[in-house]
C-alpha cells in the first residue's frame, strides 16, 4: 500500500495543482486553437478563408485542398512518374486549367481517393489525365493499399468534421507553423499552388555520371502479385478500381490514360514473364477505355526516342524537366490525333 510524505498546507498544494493542470490545459487550448485557425491543409469544415499555399511535402496532406479548389477544371493524377508535368504546359494545349495531383509513390487506392475528392468538387471536369504505371498493374491479391507515408483518410471523406480530432499532434503543429509563416510572409512558398513542384534539379545541373549510377542498377519493372493460369484469367485489382473511377466521372469529361515513359532499362524484355503482365495490363486498360466515352489511351512505355536515351533520365523512373515538357506536348499532339515516334495511341474515342 502506498503512503507518502505529506505536506500539511492544502493551500500550497491547491496552487501547485492549479498551476500544473491550468498550464497544461491552457497550452493545449492555445496550440489547438492555433492549428485549427490556421488549418494548414485547408480541409476543416469551418476553415477561415485564408490564402493558403501547399506546405506539406507529403502530397497526401496538401493535395485534397487543391483537388477541391475551383481554380481548376482539370486534373492530372499519378505517381512521381507524372509529377513533373507542368499544368502551365498542359493548359494551352487542352484549353483547360490543370492541377497536378500526382503524389510520390502513390498507391492506386490513394490516387483513386484523390480523384474522388476532385470529382466531388468538379462534377463537370473538363479533362482528367492519369499516368499509368506499375501501381495499376499489380495482379491477384497483392495490391498495396497504403504506403509507410502517412495518409490522412479523413481528408478524403465526405464528412470532414472528424478532422477536428486530428489536429492536435506534432505534425499538425509543425505544418500550421509553416503555413502561418507563409501567410505572414516569413517564409517563401516552396510548392506550386497548382500542385506542380519539381523534385529534380534543373536541367542545367544535370550530371550524366551521377544519373548513370542510378540507371545502372535499374531492372525491368515487374508488377507484384500472384499470377497463375492464362493472362486473361488474371485479376488486376487496381484496374477494377479504375473502372469504377472512370464510371464515376461525367460522360462529357475527357479522360486520358497514358502509360508513363519508363527508361528502357525498366521496360520488360520481349517475351519475358514481365512483358506478358504489362501486355495484359495494357490490354485491360484499353478495354476499360473503350467502354468509357471520351477516353484515350496513350502508350509512352515502349522503346521510343525518349525512353531509349539514358540522358533523358535522372534514374529509371524520373525523366528530366525538358522531357516532361516534351511529354506535355506529346500528350497534346496525341489528343489532336497526331502520330509521333514518342508514343502510340492505343485507343481514342472522340465520339460525342
Amino acid at each position, binding site marked *: 500500500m*502506498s*503512503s507518502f510524505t505529506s505536506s500539511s498546507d492544502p493551500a500550497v498544494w491547491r496552487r501547485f495543482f492549479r498551476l500544473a493542470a491550468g498550464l497544461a490545459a491552457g497550452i493545449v487550448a492555445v496550440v489547438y486553437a492555433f492549428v485549427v485557425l490556421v488549418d494548414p491543409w485547408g480541409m476543416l469544415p469551418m476553415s477561415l478563408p485564408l490564402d493558403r499555399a501547399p506546405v506539406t511535402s507529403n502530397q497526401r496532406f496538401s493535395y485534397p485542398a487543391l483537388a477541391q479548389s475551383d481554380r481548376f477544371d482539370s486534373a492530372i493524377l499519378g505517381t512521381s512518374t507524372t509529377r513533373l508535368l507542368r499544368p502551365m504546359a498542359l493548359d494551352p494545349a487542352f484549353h483547360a486549367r490543370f492541377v497536378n495531383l500526382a503524389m510520390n509513390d502513390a498507391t492506386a487506392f490513394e490516387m483513386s481517393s484523390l480523384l474522388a475528392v476532385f470529382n466531388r468538387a468538379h462534377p463537370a471536369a473538363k479533362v482528367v489525365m492519369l499516368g499509368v504505371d506499375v501501381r495499376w498493374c499489380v495482379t491477384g491479391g497483392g495490391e498495396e493499399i497504403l504506403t509507410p507515408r502517412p495518409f490522412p483518410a479523413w481528408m478524403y471523406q465526405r464528412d470532414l468534421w472528424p478532422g477536428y480530432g486530428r489536429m492536435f499532434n*506534432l505534425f499538425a503543429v509543425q505544418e500550421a507553423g509553416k503555413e502561418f509563416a507563409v501567410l505572414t510572409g516569413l517564409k517563401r512558398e516552396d510548392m506550386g499552388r497548382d500542385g506542380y513542384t519539381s523534385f*529534380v534539379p534543373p536541367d542545367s545541373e544535370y550530371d550524366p555520371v551521377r544519373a548513370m549510377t542510378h540507371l545502372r542498377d535499374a531492372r525491368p519493372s515487374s508488377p507484384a502479385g500472384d499470377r497463375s493460369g492464362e493472362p486473361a484469367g488474371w485479376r488486376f485489382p487496381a484496374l477494377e478500381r479504375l473502372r469504377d473511377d472512370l464510371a464515376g466521372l461525367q460522360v462529357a469529361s475527357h479522360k486520358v490514360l497514358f502509360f508513363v515513359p519508363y527508361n528502357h532499362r525498366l521496360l520488360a524484355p520481349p517475351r519475358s514473364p514481365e512483358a506478358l503482365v504489362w501486355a495484359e495490363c495494357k490490354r485491360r486498360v484499353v478495354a476499360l477505355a473503350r467502354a468509357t466515352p471520351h477516353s484515350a489511351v496513350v502508350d509512352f512505355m515502349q522503346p521510343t526516342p525518349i525512353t531509349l536515351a539514358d540522358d533523358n533520365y535522372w534514374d529509371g523512373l524520373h525523366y528530366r524537366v525538358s522531357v516532361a515538357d516534351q511529354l506535355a506536348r506529346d500528350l497534346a499532339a496525341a489528343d489532336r490525333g497526331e502520330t509521333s515516334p514518342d508514343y502510340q495511341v492505343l485507343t481514342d474515342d472522340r465520339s460525342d
Partner: protein
Amino acid sequence: MLFNSQVFITGFLPIVLALYYALAAHRQARQALVVAASLGFYAWWDVRFVPLLAGLTVANWLIAVWFGRHRARWIPVLGVVMNLLVLALFKYADFLRGTIFDLAGQDWQPWHLILPLGISFFVFQKISYLIDLRRGDRHIYGFLDFCMFVTFFPQLIAGPLVRHNEIIHQFRADPRGPAMWENLSRGFVLFVIGVAKKVLLADTLAMVADPLFQQAAATPLSAAPAWVAVGAYTLQIYFDFSGYSDMAIGLGLMFGLRLPFNFDSPYVAVSVRDFWRRWHMTLSRFLRDYLYIPLGGNRCGPLRQAANVVATMLLGGLWHGASWTFVVWGGLHGLALAVNHVWASAGLRLPRPLAWLLTMLFVMACWVLFRSPDFSSAGQMLAAMMCANGIGGMSLDREFIVALIAGVAIATLGPSSQAAALHRLRPEPWLAVPAGLGLAFLLLLIGGRLPNVFIYFQF
C-alpha cells in the same frame, strides 16, 4: 480507451473527476458515478465485454453474500472454480485444446474466442477475495462497494492487483478532505511520469525492438542488432508496464484512493529473488499468498520448497499468456529462484556488481522468450546474441539512442516513480510548471510524432 490517449486525458478524465468531486458529499452518488464511468471506460474498448465483467461482478458478490449467510466453506471454493472456468474458457481454451490435439497428433481448428480485456486481473482480484473469505475474513461488502472495488477503472485493465481490504475501506472517506489538493497534485505528477515513461521511452524503444524481433524470426541477426533488440525490449517492457502502473496509481490518487505500488526499480536488483520483490509486486504477492504458501511455501524441505517455487512460477508464467513460451519463461524464473534460495541458504555471496550483472543477463535472456512468438524465434535471437551469426553492426537514429541512454539511466540510477512523486515532490511552482508543460507536450506526442522524412530523390 488508453490512459495515454487524448480522449482519455482531455475528455474522460476531467469530466469524471469533476463530477466525482461535485458529488463528493454523497457517497453513494460518487461511487455510482465511478462504477458507471468505469463500465463506460470498459465499453469503449469493446462493448461486448461489458456483460461478462458485470455478470461476473454480480455473481461473485452474490456468492460472497451467500457465504456471509451460511458460512459454508465450500461456497467460496465454488466461486473460485467459477472464476477459473471463465478464465480458462476465454483465455486458455485454444491453448489447452491445441496442446491436447497436438499431443494426440490430430488436426484442430482454434475457436478464436475474444479475450476480454483485463480478464486475468479482475478474475484474480475476485479469487483473492473469495479465498480470503474462506480463510476467515468476514468482510461482506455492500453491492456498490464491491462493484467499485472490481470495476474502478484505473486498475481494471492491467492492475495493480488491488486487494479488497486495502481499498474498499477507503471508499468511505470524503475525497474532499484536507489532503484533496495534495492527492490531486501528487496523482497528477505521477500520472504525467507514467505517460512520459510510456510515450517517450517505451514507444520509442519499441520502434527499434519490434522490427528487430520480427526480423529475427525470419532471417538470422548478427550479435549487435540482437543485443540492441533485447536491450531495447528489456527497457521497453519495464517502462511500458511500470508507466501504466504509475498512471493507474496516479489516477487512483486523484480520486483520493491509494493503490498499491507495482514496481520498485527492478533493474537494480542483485538477485532474481530481489527482482521479483521489485517487479510487478502485486502479482508477486498474489502468487506468494495464494499459491506458494498454500503449496507449503518454505515450511517444508528444500526439495519440496524448490518444487513449490517452480510450480508457482510456472503458473505465474501461464498467467501472462496462453503459450508455452510464457510457461517456460515462468519456469526458468522459478528455477532461478530455487537456485537463488539454495545459494543464499549456503551463505554464498557474489560481489554486488557481479550479482547485478548476472541477474540482468538472466532477466534479459528470459525476456527473449517472453517476447518471441515461439521457441524457434527465441532460440534464433539467443543464438544471435551469442555471436552465432557474427558480431555485425547497425546504425541507430538519434531519437532511439537518447531514449536508450535515458532509459538505462532512469532504470538503474533514478528514483522510483513513486519515490519521486509521492515522497520527494514538493509543492513548488518550479515543479508544477514542468509537470504542466510536460503533459501538454506529451498530449501532442500522443496525437502523432513527426513522420520520418522520406529522402525521395537523392541527388
